[in-house]
């Protein structure tokens, strides 16, 4: 079941109705847990069993260890289990669906297009926090299991802090308030628009250029367009999924953390990572970057460099076992280290140029750097990435044609209907990005506005691409 599919929304509507039939908090949580297990069961019985067993194991282990003395050896033991399960599922996933991006729909049947990784990270963090005595163990197994399985966000996050999430479960609302319904519905609609009106329109070309023979892009210009479009597509696809996850949770009065903060406006790669997939980056920062930087802090700059390398090495492995992910991670390590060394000069430049001109230069530059790294992130193999890279640096054949009209957002062999569709998607993407901040404020308004909601629905129905059958990209991770 794909978040955003008809089945998903039927499940959401049904769960919402049953949820508000009950007044008892435990019963409300039970409804959410049953719906979550039902959601997981669409991917097979193994994800259900794994998720429940891991929840029970982590819940009782933390409780027992806390009571009888949480030794470091116990922490290593339980988190070895968590990491091994995560690695095992990642490995099986890659064996089964091969290329992550070109996987056909059948890929959904395989165990872990699901976010086993996401709740594994939650459990690892939970054990560390209990070991460090940052808080006491959760007392309700029901709430704990729900924090791992909660269906609106189990596939791709946001990553929860288990203790904060279970605390929020203790105050579930008795009525569906106008605020929760309006904000929830608006977020779901904008998420669907991002996915179906914008991201979907880029799929044809991106798949053609990255997955075709040799591997599809004919010239350096095609490669540039493919990388730029992929960065935009990934943002709209992934943040669209997050909007649906956050909006759906809101129907039950649950506030999930925001995972994006307008990353395409970033003026540096470090800023990009503060705005992109925020809950995952916070996890890496808190549980890898800071401990490493703290341990080696006396070595000053070298400690920072080492901490960045450790963080991105693990981040690259998290995304997949391929060499292409390692190159992607290495590029970001390089960007961040260079940025760190040039920080004082960049600040001086910002003062000299004034913020406006600095932004004009460094926002596109950051986008270009991230898009270049995505060439490796999106390529199906190292050989494909190498071929694309060679085309990119072949300046003699960089443009497909000498006439301007044939290469503005246009490849040599694009079909007319797909070209028009993609251009329309591009136009919507730019319009969205220009008004992103204002729109976000509007989406969080709690007054139900019939004209606004009607506009969103009609816009989605008229311009949505509904039948391509692709999954959310980040479900692969």
């Amino acid at each position, binding site marked *: 079941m794909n978040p955003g599919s008809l089945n998903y929304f039927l499940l959401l509507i049904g769960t919402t109705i049953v949820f508000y039939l009950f007044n008892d908090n435990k019963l409300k949580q039970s409804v959410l847990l049953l719906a979550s297990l039902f959601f997981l069961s669409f991917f097979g019985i193994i994800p259900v069993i794994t998720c429940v067993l891991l929840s029970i194991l982590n819940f009782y282990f933390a409780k027992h260890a806390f009571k009888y003395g949480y030794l470091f050896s116990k922490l290593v033991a339980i988190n070895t289990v968590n990491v091994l399960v995560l690695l095992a599922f990642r490995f099986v996933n890659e064996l089964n669906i091969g290329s992550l991006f070109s996987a056909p729909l059948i890929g959904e049947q395989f165990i872990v297009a699901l976010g086993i990784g996401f709740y594994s990270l939650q459990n690892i963090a939970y054990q560390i926090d209990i070991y460090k005595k940052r808080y006491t163990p959760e007392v309700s197994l029901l709430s704990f299991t729900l924090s791992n399985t909660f269906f609106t966000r189990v596939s791709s996050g946001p990553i929860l802090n288990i203790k904060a999430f279970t605390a929020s479960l203790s105050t579930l609302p008795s009525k569906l308030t106008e605020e929760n319904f309006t904000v929830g519905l608006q977020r779901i609609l904008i998420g669907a628009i991002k996915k179906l009106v914008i991201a979907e329109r880029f799929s044809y070309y991106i798949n053609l250029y990255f997955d075709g023979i040799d591997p599809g892009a004919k010239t350096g210009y095609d490669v540039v367009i493919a990388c730029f479009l992929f960065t935009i597509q990934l943002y709209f696809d992934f943040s669209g999924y997050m909007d649906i996850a956050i909006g759906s949770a809101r129907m039950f009065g649950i506030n999930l953390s925001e995972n994006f903060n307008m990353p395409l406006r970033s003026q540096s790669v470090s800023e990009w990572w503060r705005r992109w997939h925020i809950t995952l980056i916070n996890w890496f920062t808190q549980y890898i970057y800071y401990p490493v930087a703290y341990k080696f802090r006396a070595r000053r700059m070298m400690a*920072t460099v080492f901490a960045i390398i450790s963080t991105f090495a693990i981040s690259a492995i998290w995304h997949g076992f391929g060499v292409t992910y390692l190159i992607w991670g290495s590029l970001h390590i390089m960007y961040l280290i260079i940025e760190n060394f040039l*920080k*004082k000069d960049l600040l001086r430049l910002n003062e000299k140029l004034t913020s406006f001109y600095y932004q004009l230069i460094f926002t596109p530059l950051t986008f270009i750097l991230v898009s270049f790294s995505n060439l490796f992130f999106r390529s199906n193999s190292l050989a494909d990435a190498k071929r694309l890279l060679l085309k990119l640096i072949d300046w003699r054949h960089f443009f497909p044609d000498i006439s301007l009209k044939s290469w503005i957002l246009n490849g040599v062999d694009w079909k007319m209907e797909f070209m028009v569709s993609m251009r329309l998607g591009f136009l919507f993407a730019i319009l969205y990005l220009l008004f992103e901040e204002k729109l976000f404020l509007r989406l969080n308004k709690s007054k139900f506005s019939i004209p606004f909601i009607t506009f969103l629905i009609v816009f989605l129905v008229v311009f949505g691409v509904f039948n391509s059958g692709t999954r959310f990209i980040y479900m692969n991770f």
Partner: protein
Amino acid sequence: MKTSEQILEELQGIFIKEFSDSSIVLTDETTAKDIAMWDSLTHMGLMDTIERHFEISFSLDEMISFKNVGDLRTAITAKLK
């Protein structure tokens, strides 16, 4: 025994030297957002300098829990007692 004001003054000196920025003026409300060079990449180095200067030691949790200079000053004062 150093007073709270002395600690703030010494902290200001450390910040100015650490970030090569003589325009820094610290108050209890100053946060990382107010000082361009102070971010997650430079935070641990800064903490290391502060530890050495005052001959104290912070735990990791303490280092990442300081929300502003006021929190930092309070923690230093407590450790110097």
